[in-house]
């Protein structure tokens, strides 16, 4: 009776010797492991299937389409055009370059501000006070509200005679004249950043909170015995304990920020003067509304590569260094 190849260690003894060396108990364990493998495959099958269907296949399709001139609506079959779409994006499409810049500006601001703000909020609501649950709920409400609804509401608030400007002039006694936030090239992207942070910060607060609650109370007690003040406790106990949470939050916020689309589509349609156009918005605009599926796919592919590279770099920078 021989064993399957994978059971043999690299510097294995000849077959018979192995068979004799393996006691009955070992054999049972190997069989159990194999069965364990089998049920594990069954357990990951649904997720794998969905990922294949809705992630891997579309990515491969986009990859294929991006080298053709495929159109959304056309009686003519698509032609292979080589790297034309990519050349066009970087040389003939100023809007694409603007989208690239805007997407990065958005991410560079949102990632640190939103994660810091979320952490601050998490520390605040991580108290054993009466009514603290209410605050958690309040901070979390925007997260479960549809982003489209929120965008429409904020659009009203940002109008020239909207709530925000009315507040400004009321508070300042008429001295402050608010801008036309979404129609001004200087304020449009900032306005979108503010509402996006407000909407998503609650979600990351909850994640930080779950991280905070895994830190054992004894550590704080020990720190207090050593005479550490609040800030020192945070630096030496809380922050190190939040390491893995921090990595998770950093990566998810970055990916979310780079994928900015709904707010733009609802509120500014990329304007004024391309100051709020983003990569995903531009890809949808070109691939769908202007019916150039091939070009849209090329933009999506560029976006995919950028996100992948950034996520990998982040993983590498935050790896466990031991």
């Amino acid at each position, binding site marked *: 009776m021989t064993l399957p190849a994978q059971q043999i260690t690299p510097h294995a003894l000849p077959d018979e010797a192995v068979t004799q060396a393996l006691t009955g108990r070992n054999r049972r364990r190997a069989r159990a492991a194999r069965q364990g493998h089998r049920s594990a495959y069954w357990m990951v099958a649904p997720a794998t299937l969905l990922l294949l269907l809705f992630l891997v296949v579309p990515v491969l399709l986009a990859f294929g389409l991006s080298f053709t001139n495929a159109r959304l*609506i*056309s009686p003519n079959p698509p032609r292979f055009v080589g790297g034309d779409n990519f050349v066009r994006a970087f040389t003939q499409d*100023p809007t694409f370059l603007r989208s690239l810049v805007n997407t990065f500006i958005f991410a560079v601001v949102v990632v640190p501000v939103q994660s810091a703000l979320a952490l601050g909020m998490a520390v605040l609501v991580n108290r054993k006070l009466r009514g603290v649950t209410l605050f958690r709920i309040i901070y979390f409400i925007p997260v479960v509200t549809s982003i489209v609804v929120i965008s429409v509401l904020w659009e009203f608030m940002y109008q020239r005679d909207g709530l925000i400007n009315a507040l400004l002039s009321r508070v300042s006694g008429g001295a402050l004249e608010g801008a036309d936030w979404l*129609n001004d090239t200087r304020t449009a992207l900032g306005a979108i950043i503010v509402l996006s942070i407000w909407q998503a910060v609650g979600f990351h607060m909850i994640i930080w909170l779950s991280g905070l609650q895994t830190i054992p109370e004894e550590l704080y007690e020990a720190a207090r015995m050593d005479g550490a003040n609040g800030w020192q406790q945070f630096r030496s106990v809380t922050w190190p304990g939040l390491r893995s949470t921090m990595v998770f939050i950093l990566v998810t916020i970055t990916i979310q920020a780079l994928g900015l689309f709904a707010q733009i589509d609802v509120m500014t*349609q990329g304007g*004024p*003067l391309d100051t709020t156009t983003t990569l995903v918005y531009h890809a949808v605009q070109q691939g769908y509304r*202007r019916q150039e599926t091939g070009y849209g796919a090329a933009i999506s592919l560029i976006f995919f590569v950028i996100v992948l590279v950034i996520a990998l770099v982040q993983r590498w920078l935050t790896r466990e260094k031991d």
Partner: protein
Amino acid sequence: MSRKSFTGMLAITAASATALAACGQAGQSDGGGDGDGGTTELTMWTHSAGNPAELAIYEQIIGDYNESQDRYEVVVESFPQGAYNDAVVAGAAAGDLPCLLDMDGPIVPNWAWAGYIQPLDLDPAITDALLPTAVGEYQDEVYSAGYWDAALSVFARGSVLEENGIRVPTVEEPWTREEFDAALTTLQGAGYATPLDIGAEDAGEWWSYAYSPMLQSAGGDLIDRESMLTAEGALNGPEAVEFFEWFQGLFERGLASNAGTIGNEEFNNDEVALSYTGVWNALDSLETVGEDLLILPPPDLGEGPKIGGASWQWGISAECEASEGAREYLEFSFDPQYIAAFADGQVVIPATAEAEELSEMFGEGDPLQPFVELSQQLALERPPTPAYPIISSVFERAGKDIMNGADVQETLDQAVQEIDTNIESNDGYGF
């Protein structure tokens, strides 16, 4: 609703069991008709969900038609306008289009070129009697026909013009650009902070529909209509640049703005003196302003005043197996009574002279009659090319950028390049 279900019940009792089974799946089969003398199902899509007045008239026509014969049964499904074109594109991709579908006039060439719809082939007596802008053509072939057209005009209060000594323009003698400018400045001085509402806060097709006729009035265009192959010279020539500089100036000088609400509220509340808007807003204004309301032609920016033409129309999908029935239904539906009902229910211009007389608003001496004149004399269709959806999207983007202060020549050159690249990558769209 009740009328529909009643006629539906009548039809069902007359129909065979197979037809009954097919009823539950409108849009699934285009009815291959079945042997035992049953009815063939004609599926139909409209964009009228959320527009009860329009839907009620369709249900009346469909009910009447289904009762008038027993070979076909029309089954209607309505979509909200915002999602309608997407539904059609998705349906076409899946080979699942209905037999009958309505579509916005300017998109007809795109869908005809893509092979979504087939030539209409209605009795010429019907299509010849329609307003030219209510008929959709591509490459000299009729693909669609509609019951109505819409029109744009400038709303004003007679008393306000009189007080400020502003001449009332006519179609024969419209305002010149200088006159229009002077009038706006006068009105601004008379206390209207923003005297003109052109609906710039709106988005989407409105931009091309409302402002490309102005561009044409100034001597520019969306595309060179001779060749249909390039926008060079039409969209970025000296006339177009001059027009857009004036357009930009309207906002810079505060004569118009992109704040405010979509629709005609500002005019009805007397916050603006002039409003460039559509026939569909006329009833509300008549109610609030009454006798004082003037329906005026837009200004002549050099080449005579122009307004956009073509509204929603009907066509037959290429994959319809019962196209005979679809034609029969459409011919039935172009009855003047129905057209007049649409005109009055929707406040749109009836597409035939007969229906005009039947309607209570658009006939000789009726309050909205000026719109008929505007539509007949000034309407210009948007360029009938499959490239139109792209042209429209590029135009909107360029127009908004210019409104926000972008360099006019540069923006228009960029727009021309985008349009031309698209036409080229589509091998000229068959031109």
